């Protein structure tokens, strides 16, 4: 039981940190534009595919460095020549724009790379077990994923709170007019933030591609969960996104690892139903079975009891 707990925690942390890389960019972009970027997970997918193609020529490490840059530049271009123009027509137009963009990117990926799973592998350098515990290996690559994610978190935190550029970004988010009057180029800052957010998503794609498999559905699988995180954490709150990412990563991991379910609960109450009961599916339901749905349940609960999310500010 102990080994299951330890590995569940490790897996949860790996997933949680990965989710944070996506959620951080998304929540930054939200606080800047006031609109959720539906295409965010598509940039994550683009990152994985670019890295796959680059890795064929320059190896994994080439992909790791260049793919996020390409995605970031693409993101910046989308902001400069797409969103900024649409912005004039209001939030709904922006929302619909990013929604359309998500489909466009998915179709483009299927057009250029095809629909099958891509053979995107972990680098040989990291192809060894980091440690073996109770007969189960924890691969070095997962350790690497975790290291990168934590490094990104620390760097992001430092840049946003301690550096001058971070202070300007924060000011530009809350008081764009004032910052503009102080002589800063606010549209440029927004473009930069959008580019950085998408680059982070791209980086997440690069490091997730080899383990979570690179295929055209990867954005859809992760996309919805990232929105859930941003909403649970509180829209626009970076620390909130961090807590929510880890929370959801661990929640899913523990739920899968656990073996409890309705039969145990009913057993405690001394009730049992036989298999022919019309609601048999309900009585035999167990936690691992519904694990992937739990984040959405949490979302609903958070929205009911704390509509602003865990660390979100109440809107005036």
């Amino acid at each position: 039981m102990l080994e299951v707990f330890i590995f569940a925690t490790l897996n949860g942390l790996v997933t949680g940190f990965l989710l944070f890389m996506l959620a951080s960019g998304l929540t930054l972009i939200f606080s800047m534009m006031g609109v959720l970027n539906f295409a965010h997970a598509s940039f994550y997918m683009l990152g994985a595919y670019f890295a796959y193609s680059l890795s064929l020529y320059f190896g994994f490490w080439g992909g790791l460095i260049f793919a996020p840059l390409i995605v970031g530049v693409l993101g910046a271009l989308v902001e400069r020549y797409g969103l900024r123009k649409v912005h004039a027509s209001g939030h709904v137009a922006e929302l619909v724009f990013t929604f359309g963009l998500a489909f466009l990117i998915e179709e483009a990926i299927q057009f250029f790379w095809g629909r099958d799973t891509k053979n995107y592998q972990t680098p040989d350098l990291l192809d060894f077990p980091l440690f073996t515990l109770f007969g189960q290996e924890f691969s070095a690559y997962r350790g690497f994923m975790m290291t990168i994610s934590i490094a990104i978190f620390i760097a992001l935190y430092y840049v946003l709170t301690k550096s001058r550029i971070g202070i300007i970004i924060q000011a530009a988010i809350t008081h764009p007019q004032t910052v503009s009057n102080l002589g800063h180029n606010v549209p440029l800052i927004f473009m930069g933030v959008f580019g950085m957010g998408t680059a982070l998503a791209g980086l997440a794609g690069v490091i997730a591609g080899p383990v979570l498999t690179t295929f055209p559905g990867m954005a859809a699988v992760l996309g919805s969960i990232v929105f859930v995180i941003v909403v649970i954490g509180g829209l626009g709150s970076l620390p909130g996104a961090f807590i929510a990412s880890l929370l959801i990563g661990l929640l899913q991991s523990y739920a899968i690892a656990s073996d409890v379910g309705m039969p145990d609960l009913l057993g405690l109450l001394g009730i049992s139903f036989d298999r022919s009961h019309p609601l048999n599916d309900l009585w035999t339901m167990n936690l691992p079975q519904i694990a992937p749905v739990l984040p959405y349940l949490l979302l609903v609960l958070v929205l009911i009891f704390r509509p602003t999310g865990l660390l979100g500010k109440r809107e005036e």
Partner: protein
Amino acid sequence: MKRSLLLTKIFGSCRKPLLAISLGSAIIISSTSSAQEPVRIAFMDPLSGTFASIGNTGRTILEFAADYFYNSKGGILGGRMIEVVSLDNKQSPNETQLQFRRAVSEEIQIIFQGNSSAVASTLSQTISRHNRRNPGQEVLQINYSAVDPILTEDNCSFWHFRFDAHANMKLNILTDFIAADPDISSMYIIGQDYSFGQVVSDTTIKLINEKRPDIEIVGNEFHPIGQVKDFTPYVTKIVSSGADAVVTGNFGADMVSLARSIIDSGLDIPIYTFYAAYDGITATLGEGGKNKIRLIHNGVANPLPTETRKQFNRDFKIAHPNYDVTQPRIVNALQMVVAAMEETQSTDPYDVALALEDMRFTTMGGEEIWMRAQDHQIFQGLSVSVHTDEGVEFDADNSGWGLVTEYQVPLEETMVESSCQMRRPSR
């Protein structure tokens, strides 16, 4: 086409519906009597979304086979070409209903569909209802891959034909194979949480208990279909359960993610699957899956049995270098449907269905397969093959890796009883 539909609508509202229908169908017949019109066949499967790659490969095989065997040789029924119409159902029962309406409005009478038993069930029910209400405009369902047994058992339909062995038939052979391995003393079952995944789990447990009561089922897990990002937490449970073997019915991305997580965790136990090959899966598994991953499937993998079959593969690869002949049963299905059409000189689903019943047909692999009339289930030899790079004449995903058949049983040994009580429409 629109005109005749409109007419039936108008006539349908008049007080003598019978007369209206016969009038309507008379108009349809007269307007479609031109001899060289193509025979249109719908291919309805996911062509976008998470499971798109499987659907696209299937469509490519069907289109290629139609051209290869018939269109390039002057067509069928005295010069009619076969036209494959793609309908993307996104593997969703709702979308399937919409696409079915589209097929009907385009007067397509034969629908190939294979992915997801849930979708196949919906389609089968929709078709049965449609055919009951619209005599003269029937539609035939050619199921080349959905393997929930219920489709040819309790829910069997005259309008549904299955060209793949169903899950119980496959599991019967697979569990024979597992039972013959004395090294296995415990087993873990993991599958997608829907009808087919449940069938795999229930049947495996039942059969293993009969054949090898000493094998302990140490895990029986379901996960939502197409929703799991990372299978590592599941693999953690498999490892800690101490299982000697894993059985799964997963397909598509769920299959490849699961297998990779198992390989990455360093777990060295056999994995018995239905669909762990092709569409990028073989290439992704590569070295890590060697001699670990096994599949139960119909027909045989390497070495391919006949020169005709080999030549088909070679010609297919020339035309579509990035695809593989993943499901030769699609070709069998097409050939049998065409044989039925030629035999009756008709494309009417009722005639074709009657001709398909009890048909014996020799495939390009040289094997005689049989469509049982009782439940419209195909019977043919089944094989267990292993993922390897040795002795692979025809690889998958151009990767050098592929399947080599290890265990084979002939048609007779795959027979199972069916509870099907088919209601046959009379004409």
